[in-house]
C-alpha cells in the first residue's frame, strides 16, 4: 500500500522542491513520519491526502529556515533568458510555466501545483492546504489568470492563436 504511494509522493515533492535530491529527502522524511504516526491514520481516509499533507508541512518547515530574500535571489537567478520566439507554440513550455508559477504569491503557487500536478480531487487538495474548497478555487482562478498574463496568453490577438 505505502509503496504504491511513493511514486506520487516523489512527483509531488519534485514539484515543490524541484531539486531531485532535495525532493527525495523530503519523501524519505515524510515516509519516516508516516510510519511513526501510522496509528493516527484512519483506514476510511484515503492515504494519499494524508501523506501529501505531511510532505507539504515538511516542505514548509524546510523553506521557513531560509530567508525569503535569499529564495527570491535564487529564483530570479534561475530565470532563463527568453531566447525563444514569443510565438504561441513556444510560450507554454514547461520551463516558462514553472518560472511563471514561481513568481506567483505562495498561496496561488500552492493551489496551482496541488491541482495541476497531482491527481487529488479539489476537496482533497483543499484539505492538504488546510483551506476551504471555495478558497482553493478562488486561488486557483487568480493563479491561472496571472499565469495567462505572464505567459502572454491573455491579450493575444486572434491571429496569434492560429497554429502555424
Amino acid at each position, binding site marked *: 500500500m505505502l509503496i504504491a504511494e511513493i511514486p506520487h509522493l516523489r512527483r509531488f515533492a519534485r514539484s515543490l522542491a524541484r531539486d531531485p535530491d532535495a525532493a527525495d529527502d523530503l519523501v524519505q522524511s515524510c515516509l519516516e513520519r508516516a510510519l511513526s504516526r501510522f496509528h493516527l491514520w484512519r483506514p476510511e481516509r484515503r492515504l494519499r491526502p494524508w501523506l501529501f499533507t505531511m510532505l507539504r508541512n515538511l516542505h514548509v518547515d524546510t523553506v521557513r529556515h531560509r530567508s525569503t530574500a535569499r529564495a527570491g535571489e535564487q529564483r530570479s537567478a534561475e530565470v532563463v533568458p527568453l531566447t525563444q520566439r514569443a510565438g504561441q507554440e513556444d510560450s*507554454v513550455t514547461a520551463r516558462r*510555466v514553472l518560472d511563471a508559477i514561481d513568481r506567483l504569491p505562495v498561496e496561488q503557487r500552492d493551489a496551482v501545483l496541488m491541482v495541476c*500536478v497531482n491527481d487529488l480531487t479539489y476537496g482533497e487538495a483543499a484539505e492538504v492546504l488546510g483551506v476551504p474548497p471555495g478558497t482553493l478555487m478562488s486561488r486557483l482562478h487568480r493563479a491561472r489568470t496571472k499565469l495567462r498574463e505572464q505567459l502572454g496568453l491573455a491579450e493575444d490577438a486572434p491571429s496569434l492563436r492560429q497554429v502555424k
Partner: protein
Amino acid sequence: MAAMNENRSSVTTEELHAYADGRLPPERAELVEAYLLDHPARAAEVEDYRRINRALGEAFDSVLDEPLPAAQVALVQNRPRRLAAPFMAAAAGLLLGIGLTWSVQTLGSGPPTALGQLSETSAAAYTVFAPEVRHPVEVRAAEAGHLSAWLSNRMGMSFRIPRLGDLGFELVGGRLMIGDHSPAALLMYENADGRRLVLYVRNDLTQRGDSAPVYTRARDTGVVSWISGETGYGLAGGFSEGELLPAARLVQAQLSS
C-alpha cells in the same frame, strides 16, 4: 430550450476550471462544452488552462516512471509488523473488491506451504488469463520498457523481464497481480503454435527462503515454482515437466545473473 439556455448561462467559473481539469461529471461537462461553443473567449481560457496543465505534466509526470530510491523502499518494507496491520486490512478489502480470492489448496497433505500457494496462484492465473484473446495482458510486449519500469515501481524491486526466445517463446506482455498484500506481476509468453505460458512473480513472501524448482500438476496445468529470498516464482502452462523445467532454469539463470 429555454431551460437549456438557462443552464448554459449558469456555468460558473469554478466549473470552467473543473472542466479544464477533467473533474466535472459527464452531464455537467456536456453543458460546459455547449456553453464554450457560444463563448470563444472563455473557450480560449479553458484551452490555456489545459496547455498549462500539459506543460506541468511534461515537467513532472516522468517522475512516476523513475525507479524508486532504494532507501525509500527499504524504509517502507522494513516497517515493524504492528504498523502493517491497517495496511493489511485495507489490502484485504481491495482483494474482496476485486473478487480475486483464490482458494489456497494444499498440495498433498499438511499445511499450505509457500511453494504450494505459488503453484496454485500461478495455475489459476494461467487458467484465467491464457485463454484471453483480446485482453491477455495489460501492457503489451511492444512497451516492454514501460512494463518493466511499471512493475519495478509497483513491486519496489528491479523487475527484469526474462527472455524465453531460445525455447521458442516470445513475450506477449504483462499485468499487475496480487501477492498476499502487495502488488505482484504476471508475464505471458507464447510460442509459434500459439501455446502460452505465464510467469507469476511475487516478492512479499513472509518467510525468506531458497527452494529449487518443483513441478506440480493442478487440473490440466503444469507448474514449476521456486523461491529465492523473499521472491517466489511460478511458471505455469499446459506443459509437461520436461517442457517446463528447462524454461524455469532459463528464467532462473537470467534473473540471478
